[in-house]
């Protein structure tokens, strides 16, 4: 195989735009050397492909992923080809695998050929034409409404999408609301005498850590609110010390 790296670079950077997939790339590598696919050296092809993989992995790992399975497969094939044939006891023997690859390449090549043949044919609206204006008879009423399968499917999919995005259920928040805390404090304060630590008012049945934190925060905010409204007094002896509440009517 006499492919200079320079040339590789050129071929392979073109490959990124032009090639659709691994088999496609193999096909082009084979054509590049003007080789009849049926007489192809799988070993050479595998080597070239692996070279390409090495190059592409450095350049763009995402594109490389598309080519990796084939790469692994070819590496396996290559190692088998290099090893003496007597060890070959695999379920699928090496010849079968090469044949399969060759078949796959021929198949893709044939499809690429016929797709070109197909589009070389005369096409309606470009090379030949339908009647410019239709006339309608009462007997062909079904032509009255034109709806394609594509329209129908698209319409349904749009409904499904909008349905999915409209009917989002917002999970009930686990957080303790200030409103709740305020109601609770008012009720409890009316039944207590003297100064009480704020922490005594926090519901004892909360186990979730986050919920507990939120309960403390909202009870504190609620207590400030009650002071502002003139229902209670608050006192704290110093920074980071306990906060005490007392009902105004108890003073």
């Amino acid at each position, binding site marked *: 195989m006499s492919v200079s790296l320079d040339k590789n670079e050129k071929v392979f950077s073109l490959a990124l735009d032009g090639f659709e997939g691994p088999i496609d790339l193999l096909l082009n590598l084979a054509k590049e050397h003007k080789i009849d696919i049926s007489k192809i050296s799988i070993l050479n092809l595998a080597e070239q492909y692996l070279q390409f993989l090495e190059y592409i992995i450095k350049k763009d790992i995402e594109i490389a992923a598309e080519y990796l399975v084939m790469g692994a497969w070819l590496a396996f094939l290559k190692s088998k080809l290099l090893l003496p044939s007597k060890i070959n006891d695999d379920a699928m023997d090496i010849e079968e695998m090469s044949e399969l690859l060759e078949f796959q390449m021929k198949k893709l090549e044939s499809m690429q050929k016929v797709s070109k043949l197909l589009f070389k044919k005369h096409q309606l609206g470009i090379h030949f034409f339908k009647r410019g204006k239709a006339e*309608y008879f009462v007997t062909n009423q079904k032509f009255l409404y034109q709806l394609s399968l594509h329209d*129908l499917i698209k319409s349904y*999919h749009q409904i499904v999408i909008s349905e999915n*995005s409209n009917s989002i259920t917002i999970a009930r928040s686990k957080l303790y609301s200030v409103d709740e805390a305020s109601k609770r404090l008012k009720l409890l304060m009316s039944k207590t005498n003297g100064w009480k630590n704020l922490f005594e008012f926090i519901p004892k049945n909360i186990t979730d850590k986050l919920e507990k934190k939120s309960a403390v925060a909202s009870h504190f905010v609620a207590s400030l609110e009650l002071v502002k409204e003139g229902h209670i007094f608050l006192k704290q002896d110093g920074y980071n010390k306990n906060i005490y509440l007392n009902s105004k009517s108890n003073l």
Partner: protein
Amino acid sequence: MLNLNKKKDEEFDFNLNKKIVEALIFSSQEPITLTELRKSIINKDLLNEILVSLEKKYSSSGINLFKVNDSYAFRTSPDLCEYLNIEKIIPKKLSRAATETLAIIAYHQPITRSEIENIRGVSLSKGTLDLLLELNWIQPGERKTTPGNPLTWLTSNNFLDHFGLKNITDLPGLDDLKDTGLLEKNKIIFKDNFVE
């Protein structure tokens, strides 16, 4: 001998130009003017002769060549009007409501009217089901055993014919088309974003 060849060439020329005129009138959306026809043919002098020849050719056909002012068009022969009831019908697009309703019935059948309304989120106008029924795309199914015994709707055989489907299960589902681009979603999921 030379004369014979010349005559053959002339005949070929006339026939080719005639075919071009015929094809142009056929494929034109509106009646096509003499000026336009003259522009498109190779041998301009032949146009009048060609039109006379075409008129004659189609005079006993199911389609006739009609002249409107200085324009030409093919139209169905008036002789056939008792057999073919020609009407001016303008092809219409099915309304969005009707298309959606048909799609929902197709994918969810048998389905009741109120179930359709639930999916679409709007109430169904009476005309929508009537239209689909008239087009013979849907048909009534069995009544449900739930309170009120509501009627269910199904798609008809005509629906399958129209869309070229053998069975209703051959309708492409969401899985079949999931990567086709039809199902591009921009779904936003709301969640409790509080993390400890």
